[in-house]
């Protein structure tokens, strides 16, 4: 076989990496290179340098070190039984690509993942080597996200956490049974242990010693994980239950949901029907309600009988429609907790309402100017000069938001 060019390798190894949803580059320690001795900065908020037509942001150079893999996970394009083209980057190639892309302002940093070759430790130590070279030889101060291999030795994970901004380990599927079925070589308990280990090291690195000395920051942008939705039969209640457990147990920054997407050369073990992309979107909305809007899991999932979220309307609206007794709310007196439950009000709108109503009584037009989505909210609130009257309890309220029913084709 002819030697692959760097362009060919990049094509294969970025194609192989696109099924990882995360591309976040935010929330790490602030640093810059004003001193002229290094390259790069990190300012807290992430930057998306481009968008692909799949609507996903491109913030990091997201590549695999290699797509050779000894595992056979049926949902994965890189599984050992797949016939995709294989390639492997050398350590220096990844370092050079990252730095040259960064200098041209294409990216915020590197998101490195890898198929498992030889052994988990051998793979992980090459990945750590790349991060070490970037940090110490290139004085790179941009963002690094390393996907850790769950079975790698704790020493390697410890070093990875000191070099990288974020570590992640994919739980892959919502239940242990599904992992056993689709990813036979992966062990859910091993994955959980690895996440526990990252959390403990991160907690330790945040303790200040008696002398006031701070240890080196461990994965300052935290850890995240990803689950594939729709490959197994789990309903949304199971999926969200799993993510609340992950958030509380391992203090994850994010759980990413990735609608199972057809891959080239897919395995016959997988379902043929792809889940609607809307499901992924609804899961993210529910995830947000749980983390930022003080919703409890069962409040969101008890709205429907089968434990799946309503695909036609968002989960907050779905909750409000079955709890109409709590509405309409007076925006001039309702508590923050209740205002957060109004469909069409976001966290920003609510805090604007709270600061403004200290000085005067709010009218309907004020809410429009504050950026609330009044098309949704108006049925659930009262304000000076506005009352929804019978709208809140009207039978046709749901139909105002849900897309009209479509008659099925006979053929």
């Amino acid at each position, binding site marked *: 076989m002819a030697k692959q060019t760097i362009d060919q390798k990049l094509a294969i190894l970025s194609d192989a990496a696109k099924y990882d949803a995360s591309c976040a580059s935010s929330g790490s320690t602030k640093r810059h290179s004003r001193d002229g001795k290094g390259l790069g*900065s990190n300012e807290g908020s992430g930057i998306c340098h481009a968008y692909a037509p799949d609507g*996903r942001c491109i913030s990091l150079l997201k590549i695999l070190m290699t797509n050779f893999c000894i595992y056979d996970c049926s949902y994965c394009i890189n599984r050992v039984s797949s016939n995709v083209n294989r390639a492997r980057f050398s350590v220096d190639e990844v370092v050079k690509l990252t730095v040259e892309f960064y200098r041209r302002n294409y990216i915020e940093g590197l998101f490195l993942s890898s198929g498992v070759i030889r052994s988990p430790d051998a793979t992980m130590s090459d990945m750590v080597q790349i991060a070490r070279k970037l940090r110490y030889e290139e004085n790179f101060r941009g963002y690094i996200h390393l996907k850790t291999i769950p079975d790698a030795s704790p020493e390697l994970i410890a070093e990875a956490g000191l070099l990288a901004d974020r570590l992640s380990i994919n739980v892959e599927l919502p239940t242990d049974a599904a992992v056993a079925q689709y990813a036979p070589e992966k*062990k859910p308990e091993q994955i959980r242990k690895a996440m*526990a280990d990252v959390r403990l090291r991160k907690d330790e690195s945040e303790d200040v010693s008696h002398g006031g000395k701070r240890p080196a920051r461990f994965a300052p942008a935290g850890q995240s994980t990803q689950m594939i939705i729709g490959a197994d039969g789990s309903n949304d209640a199971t999926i969200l239950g799993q993510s609340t457990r992950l958030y509380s147990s391992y203090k994850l920054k994010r759980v990413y949901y990735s609608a199972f997407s057809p891959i*080239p*050369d897919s395995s016959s073990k997988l379902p043929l029907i792809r889940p609607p992309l809307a499901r992924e979107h609804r899961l993210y909305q529910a995830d947000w309600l749980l983390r930022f809007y003080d919703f409890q899991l069962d409040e969101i999932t008890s709205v429907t009988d089968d434990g799946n979220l309503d695909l036609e309307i968002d989960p907050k609206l779905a909750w409000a429609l079955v709890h109409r007794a709590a509405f309409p709310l007076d925006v001039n007196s309702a508590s923050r907790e209740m205002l957060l439950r109004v469909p069409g009000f976001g966290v920003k709108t609510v805090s604007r309402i709270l600061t403004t109503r200290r000085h005067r009584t709010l009218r309907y037009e004020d809410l429009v100017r504050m950026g609330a989505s009044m098309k949704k909210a108006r049925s659930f609130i009262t304000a000076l000069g506005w009352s929804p009257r019978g709208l809140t309890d009207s039978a046709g309220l749901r139909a105002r938001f849900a897309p009209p029913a479509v008659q099925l084709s006979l053929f």
Partner: protein
Amino acid sequence: MYRVQLPEIGTAAAWRDAARQYLAAGVPPDQILWDDHQAAPDLFAAQDYLHAQGSPLHVPKSFISMAQAVVWHNNPERFARLYQFLWRLRHKPTLMQDRGDPDLVRLRLMEKNVRRCQHKMKAFVRFREITPTGANRRSFAAWFEPTHHTVEPTADFFVRRFSDMDWRILTPDVCAVFDSGGLRFEAGQAKPELPEDANEQLWITYFKNIFNPARLKVKAMQSEMPKKYWKNMPEAAFIPEMIAGATARAQAMADAAPTLPPLRMARVQAQLASCQSEWGGPQEGLPAAISACIRCPLHKEATQPVLGEGPTDASLMIVGEQPGDYEDLTGKPFVGPAGQLFDKVARVVGLDRKQTYVTNAVKHFKFAPQGRRRIHQRPNPSEIEQCRWWLNAEIAAGSPKLIVAMGATAALSLTGNGRNISARQGSIEHGLTGLPVLITAHPSYLLRLPNARAKKAATALFQRDLKQAIFAVEQL
């Protein structure tokens, strides 16, 4: 009538100085004509400049940060609107908090436009290398067309990021030039011809391949990367062909029949099986069996089962309730706050933990997630019963003479009765396995007592029980 013309470079500072002067002099908004550098001289306005020194002014910080963004907007009315709002703000400083005020909403919107434009500039500037041969410092240049006058307020971002190289961002508005460590601004210019850059080809390859044709969301892309920016982004030229081919590519993936695995697979899997034992294949013995336990649903939510710890030939065995948050993460028993209290009391009474076998009645942590915390839940009788299987196996594997049951769960598991612990505390009962069981409180109970006196009394009782256990073991 006064007329103020603001310069193209240094607009923010110039506006601030002028506004401060006019406000101090009490000049109302309708008496000032604000112009940016592009405005032609207005023949009808009086060229009446003001050089008054007024008293210092106090405006809310939030106004200053908003004004510093709004001055870079491309709307010619921006200065007048800011001054008009500032005029109202004089007598009503709380106006900044009124998010329903139409003037403020309009200014905030302009601020948002400018910040977004700055953000997009940080994201979409694309450098090409222009290092002359033989130079020891690398040099880059970019052509960019901002919507608002954002080059000046955004240039420092590029200084913070790229100080180890020379760069210039050329625009039709203002150009930023960073040369040997110094930043300067120059007048705008026409689009220059920049040399080809080989890395641009690699970037396009990356852009094409990171795209997943099976999930086309063109609207989502365009709302974040509006078309007006495309002409200066090398990768954007390929977007139309990527969209056009997407559906066919996704269909081809779905239609393709599953292929046979490559020959390599058998080889790899044989090799994998042979090295399985190195990283956690099946091992003989009790610990491995407990680790793989799925007898009750608790294993699904916990990180790992927490095994007992200590010499198997210990004559004293201590049984707690279940692992806590920290035990669940570390996999070690009695290391959380309750475990530390136990160690403290044990040291006081002279009990050597290394000489005893410590374990829990239930091996997995049971909890309810609440935000980022886990709230401990008491295991129910069926979970205790399922786990008794392992506890009995641990007792059988060792040779304890006495077992200390700490708390109701341990008492239930060891004696079949978990009720009324306070009345039974300190008594030695006949356990289900036939061994004597000493009933005592769980250390976490001591931690939970709010009252210092009650805590002291309960700790004394706990000490008494441990002393009794040491004594009893010596007698047995």
